[in-house]
């Protein structure tokens, strides 16, 4: 009687073990699926665009013929837009984070700002594009310029920079503050000499990661009216412009297969830029972030 029960339990345990094993394999395969897709995407984009990728591609303007088309104007446009976005979003983002972490009282207003930031982070980028189109392009009459595009992009990545900066500031231990207070430093002196230097690697990492999002961002700049056919380099922040992702979108939408290959070549350049930016961010994170 007793022995029989043990045998039955054995069967049950074996079954449960089998389920566990099956589950583990299934969960692992699901995890691997994402990597397989990523590998497929990279290989596909690379093989598709490789033939068009050469020095001429980087140094010529857009063209009606796929073999002559290049991304010179697009790269210049991306650099110019980032030239506006980087300072604006960094100053506003770090300022907001400093206020929230160092000065803000725990009251309803602070809570409202935080809630508002997290909601802004969830607003689709195309809605930011509508905002930029109305406010910057029309109301402030900046036209379809680099300035309007750069400012729109700053607003888009502002919530991400704030979150990254806040986390970085929060990780500074209380002892550092207390030591500085004990030396007679005032609040702003502490921020200037203790908080900002210690938080800089974290802020930089977050900033580079969010900027890499801005470099790949298409929808909002499309609304601003960044054009895809530009055969000159921008000469001021009021010039009209195009950026790399918009150029890719434009080529991808053409019916000829050749242009889709050109789009893939542009995608390779874009991915290389993004991977380079992410690597820099990871290096900064690993090398300069202090552990307390």
């Amino acid at each position, binding site marked *: 009687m007793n022995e029989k029960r043990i045998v039955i339990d054995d069967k049950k345990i074996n079954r449960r073990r089998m389920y566990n094993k099956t589950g583990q394999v299934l969960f692992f395969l699901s995890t691997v699926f994402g990597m397989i897709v990523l590998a497929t995407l990279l290989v596909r984009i690379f093989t598709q665009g490789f033939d068009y990728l050469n020095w001429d591609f980087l140094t010529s303007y857009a063209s009606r013929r796929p073999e002559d088309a290049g991304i010179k104007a697009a790269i210049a446009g991306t650099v110019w837009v980032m030239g506006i976005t980087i300072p604006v979003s960094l100053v506003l983002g770090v300022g907001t984070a400093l206020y929230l972490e160092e000065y803000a009282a725990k009251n309803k207003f602070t809570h409202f700002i935080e809630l508002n930031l997290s909601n802004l982070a969830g607003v689709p980028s195309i809605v930011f594009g509508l*905002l930029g189109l109305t406010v910057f392009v029309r109301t402030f009459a900046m036209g379809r310029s680099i300035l309007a595009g750069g400012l729109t992009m700053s607003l888009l990545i502002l919530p991400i920079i704030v979150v990254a900066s806040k986390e970085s500031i929060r990780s500074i231990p209380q002892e550092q503050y207390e030591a500085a207070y004990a030396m007679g430093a005032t609040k702003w002196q502490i921020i200037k000499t203790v908080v900002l230097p210690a938080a800089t690697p974290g802020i930089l990492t977050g900033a580079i990661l969010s900027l890499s999002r801005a470099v790949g961002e298409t929808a909002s700049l499309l609304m601003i009216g960044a054009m895809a056919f530009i055969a000159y380099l921008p000469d001021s922040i009021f010039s009209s412009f195009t950026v790399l992702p918009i150029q890719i979108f434009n080529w*991808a939408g053409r019916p000829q297969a050749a242009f889709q290959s050109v789009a893939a070549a542009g995608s390779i350049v874009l991915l290389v830029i*993004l991977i380079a930016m992410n690597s820099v961010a990871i290096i900064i994170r690993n090398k300069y972030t202090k552990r307390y």
Partner: protein
Amino acid sequence: MQPSIRDLIKKNKSKSSSVNITERVMPIILLLMASFSILVTIAIVFTLLRETIMFFTVVPIWDFLTGTEWFPFFGNDPSYGIWPLVSGTFTIAAIAMIVAVPLGLSSAIYLSEYASEKKRKIIKPILEVLAGVPTVVYGLFALTFVTPLLQVFIPSLPIFNALSPGIVVGIMIIPQVTSLSQEAMNAVPQAMRDGALALGATRLEVALKIVIPGSFSGIVSSLVLALSRAIGETMIVATAAGSTPRLGFNPTESIQTMTAYIVQVSMGDATFGSTIYYSIYAVGMMLFLFTLLMNIIASYFARKYREVY
């Protein structure tokens, strides 16, 4: 020639008054910067609202909300019924969720319950790269790779369809589902797992009966956020889903989403002040309200799970 004590005190006082000014001014400047984000929200709501109201002076709001035909480009007799765009948007979002929920949750369970620290350190950065691929590249991938691949299995599938961009949007949001759900699962105390394991539960039983119920609201929050992103996704659908507003949920047809309509108009030459120009704000307003609602629901659930542990 040492300065007298009196001079030193004077010097220090004048210095400290300038210090005092910075001490008083900096918080105000920083407060203004922090308030700027509120200004941005107000600006978004205000611009959308103003132009949407302009739109509703031409097109009755009732027709917009109940109409089932969206033909803004029919010169003499345009019709602005939002439902075809809404159904297109939700077709894409539904396909994306069908792809992302099982795969994303499975990898979250794997990473949080099965994987060793070493494997986690390899897998997570790869998922981050997947999340960092620009959507326009995903769009190109959907159009030139996934669609032809699907056409092998469904020969009647047109070049522009809802299925291919839907699947790719799903792939795009997998990393988000995985990382947010895994975060929620990590918040379940180890002691609860250990207790179940000590009673003889397998890891699968721990995952299904302890970890998932314990992190349920966090998982729901991550799924709602992912849904919100799928609804707001623009470039993949604008590239690969076509531009045929159609009421219904047939994934093998060309459709148009709310976001793709806005792109289509902005690329065309809708004159400033025309009805078509104002219509993108009305559609943008719908989009904004949908995603805002999702975000509020998500943060409600997120707060709930943070309160538990």
